């Protein structure tokens, strides 16, 4: 672990520059994606990636140069390029960062169970093959796939103020999906996929429930095929954690990103219906809504000790009892806006610069078990497992779709319905939150696929949530 650290430290110490501040962020990543589709093992897809980003600050202007050449000369060339560009761009720079504090932290961060080896490739294929074979034989089951993705990342951050931060993490993504088709319509049911990523080892696969899940997931796909469409109209809506994660992500996470509020993303990812002046005042949701930035749940996908600019991460309430308190803004955005934020300056790899990202963004549990949530609904619908997401560029008007719907009548779960969709407006939706599930409904989930930034970056984010009930939401089904 951290094999390159001594060399990197030596080479960093030998770099020469006229910059007032400079840093290097080295990333090494090894990936493995294993899959069995319809009982046929697909060839493994493996990867090894390694590179470094040099950042300089010259007369208050920061620029970066990322390089795949990690030799002394390669790092020096990158540093020189960045320095030269910073000097050229001075007349056009938006920001003067001469007074922005820099990190001098020194620490290590490791994923849980990193010392335990992951099962061998043979063992993984055996597991995937067994789960694939467990999908029942039914001519309507036209496609199914079981997979495991494993990514191991080492990162070392050094800067001219003495910071020395090392992270070693392992991310695991188990997945199973089954598609049923009746000659007219098709329905897919999934477990995990891009919803259930965690840090850890084989324990992640156990927690996901992948083992032995084939028959149940296949049965649910067939149930959906036979189910009627979701009825149209306002109903109380019970969202399970694997849909809550998307709901949190799109209509709390993105609108609270401080760089969006400062306008950086207006050309691509968009802006926000939230204004900087709303923090400390805006009633974002009902009093049951408590939202945290929480880097401290060890298995959650975006738990870490320091962000990619070297800021120390700690749990912070962003929304407490429905009131908006704090944005998702890293050190740079905090400096620009003059506001407190969180340690969420993150980059997807060595070849992209850190920007404000969600990390672990969670809803704190309430006090009602699932039975009580259902029991409190007279005319409603349960929705589970996101499959479709669309929201405006200010993160306000949204429409989301799920795989699984189940009607609720007079406090009881009733029939399954297919194509469950709902639409609403963020600024109003969270105020309709009227019940929050307790810890027994709380699940730690996460996805590797959050896109943002120019140049574009796709990054890991964690979302943990209980099941939640919303009053009178506009729901509807599909055409088929």
């Amino acid at each position, binding site marked *: 672990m951290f094999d390159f650290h001594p060399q990197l430290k030596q080479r960093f110490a030998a770099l020469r520059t006229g910059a007032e501040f400079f840093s290097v962020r080295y990333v090494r990543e090894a990936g493995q994606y294993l899959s069995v589709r319809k009982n046929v093992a697909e060839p493994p897809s493996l990867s090894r990636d390694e590179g470094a980003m040099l950042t300089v600050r010259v007369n208050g202007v920061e620029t*970066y140069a990322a390089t795949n*050449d990690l030799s002394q000369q390669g790092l020096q060339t990158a540093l020189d390029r960045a320095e030269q560009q910073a000097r050229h761009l001075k007349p*056009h720079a938006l920001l003067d960062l001469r007074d922005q504090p820099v990190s001098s932290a020194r620490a290590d961060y490791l994923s849980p169970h990193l010392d335990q080896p992951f099962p061998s490739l043979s063992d993984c294929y055996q597991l995937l093959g067994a789960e694939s074979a467990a999908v029942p034989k039914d001519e309507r089951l036209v496609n199914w796939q079981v997979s495991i993705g494993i990514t191991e990342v080492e990162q070392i951050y050094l800067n001219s103020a003495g910071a020395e931060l090392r992270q070693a993490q392992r991310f695991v993504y188990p997945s199973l999906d089954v598609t049923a088709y009746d000659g007219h319509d098709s329905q*897919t049911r999934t477990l995990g996929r891009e919803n259930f990523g965690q840090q850890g080892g084989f324990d992640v696969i156990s927690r996901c429930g992948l083992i032995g899940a084939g028959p149940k997931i296949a049965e649910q796909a067939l149930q959906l095929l036979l189910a009627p469409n979701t009825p149209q109209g306002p109903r109380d809506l019970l969202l399970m954690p694997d849909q809550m994660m998307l709901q949190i992500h799109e209509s709390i996470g993105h609108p609270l990103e401080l760089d969006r509020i400062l306008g950086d993303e*207006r050309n691509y990812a968009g802006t926000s219906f939230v204004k900087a002046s709303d923090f400390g005042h805006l009633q974002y949701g009902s009093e049951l809504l408590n939202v945290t930035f929480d880097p401290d749940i060890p298995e959650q996908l975006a738990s870490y000790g320091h962000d990619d600019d070297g800021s120390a991460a700690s749990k912070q309430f962003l929304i407490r009892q429905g009131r908006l308190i704090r944005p998702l803004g890293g050190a740079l955005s905090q400096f620009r806006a003059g506001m407190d934020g969180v340690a969420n300056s993150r980059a997807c790899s060595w070849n992209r610069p850190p920007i404000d990202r969600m990390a672990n963004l969670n809803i704190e549990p309430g006090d009602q078990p699932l039975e009580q949530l259902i029991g409190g609904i007279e005319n409603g619908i349960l929705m589970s497992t996101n499959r479709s997401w669309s929201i405006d560029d200010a993160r306000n008007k949204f429409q989301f779709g799920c795989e699984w719907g189940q009607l609720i009548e007079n406090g009881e779960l009733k029939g399954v319905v297919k194509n469950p969709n709902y639409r609403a407006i963020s600024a109003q939706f969270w105020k309709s939150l009227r019940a929050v599930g307790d810890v027994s409904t709380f699940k730690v989930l996460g996805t590797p696929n959050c896109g943002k930034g120019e140049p574009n970056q796709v990054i890991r984010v964690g979302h943990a949530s209980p099941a939640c009930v919303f009053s009178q939401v506009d729901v509807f089904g599909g055409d088929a």
Partner: protein
Amino acid sequence: MMTSTKQAAPFKALVTWLREALREPEQFTLSYAAESSAFVRFNHAKVRQAGQVQQASVGLKLINEGRHADLDITLSGDPSVDTQRLAEGLQQLRDTLPLLPPDPYLLLNYNGWQSQNVQDHPLPDTEHVVTQIAQAAEGLDLVGFYAAGPISRGFASSSGAFGWHQANSFNFDFSLFHANGQAVKASYAGHDWSDEGFAKRFAQAREQLEHLGRPLRTLPPGQYRAYLAPAALEEIIGMLCWGGFSAQSIASKSSPLQKLYGGDQSFSPLVSLDEKVSGSLSPAFSGEGYPRSDLGLIVAGKAGAQLVGSRSAAEYGLTANGAGGGESPSALNMAAGSLPDSEILRQLGTGLYISNLWYLNFSDQPAARLTGMTRFATFWVENGEIQAPVSTMRFDDSAYSLLGSQLEALTADRELLLSASTYSQRATASAWLPGALVSRLTLTL
């Protein structure tokens, strides 16, 4: 910046080494991707973030007696380090193959094809471009992103195939914001930066910005006539490309166009859509080593060819036609219609002029029913005249309606839209698209 011959040399050296290192009956394919990019972000017409990225990687597939595995390796640019990395990668794959069963869907291309395409038109200095942009945007609220530099792609196999694709390009993707929060989106992209060309494109965007100063119109949900400009139509076509033309998706019933390919649905006879590789910006060969063909995907509203990768070809008994791993198009070319640009507003009459759509997804994928948002420069038009910008609205409609029963006309002029995507690497995808006049678009929120 290296010359064209020098850019291919490191890849050729690795191929030579690999051919010598191979042990009978091993086979390999080796793909290559490299770029050197300048990236500059703008906010409030100033440089928000700037940098440079140099990256290169190979994708090695080792095959031995029906077993195979793939390994992507980042290169350093130092020949001795890269040879060492390739040697270690080869050993890793040699250790892996015995752990795998033979793959019944392995289909290799034994053709020793050769392909070379080098475009090394000089690019402008980044500082010059930044100065041009800053001057043009003075007094305006510009937000945008400039990406430029050389891109290289290569492929070689143990069967003697060798492909090299190299192109210099730039893409300035930008928005101009009015003080009321409304914005117009534009881009200036290609191989040959011209200060005059940029000034002309910028002036067009600036002219549209002036329309955005009128009081905002808020529309109730309902059905409206609409004109979808090429960039808006690209979003709809882009969604249909999410597995729409993929042979595996069609066979496994996850394609949004399964009803089209099943013969249960069709588009308007006006709709013809090709994957036209020849003359496009993307490589003429796939990452798995098949030359790419020009294909008619939708022909006069009916299903045409599918995009077939080697794995799908083996599994479904089809012929591989150079589709990449995801079997998605990357050189779209849609047939033009007959509506002159000068007639768009008059033919629209009263309805919506939509410049861009945003964040589309499926409401019902097997039915090709889509939802998404208007974004950037959407106008309310009455009697052929622009009246006011329209506040952001959600649509929810079937592609078979928008491009089928409700499609009135396609424009005679088309726009070349170059992808500004930079996820992992700068994209080479492009689309030639007309605008579309539709008699009914359903707005829901």
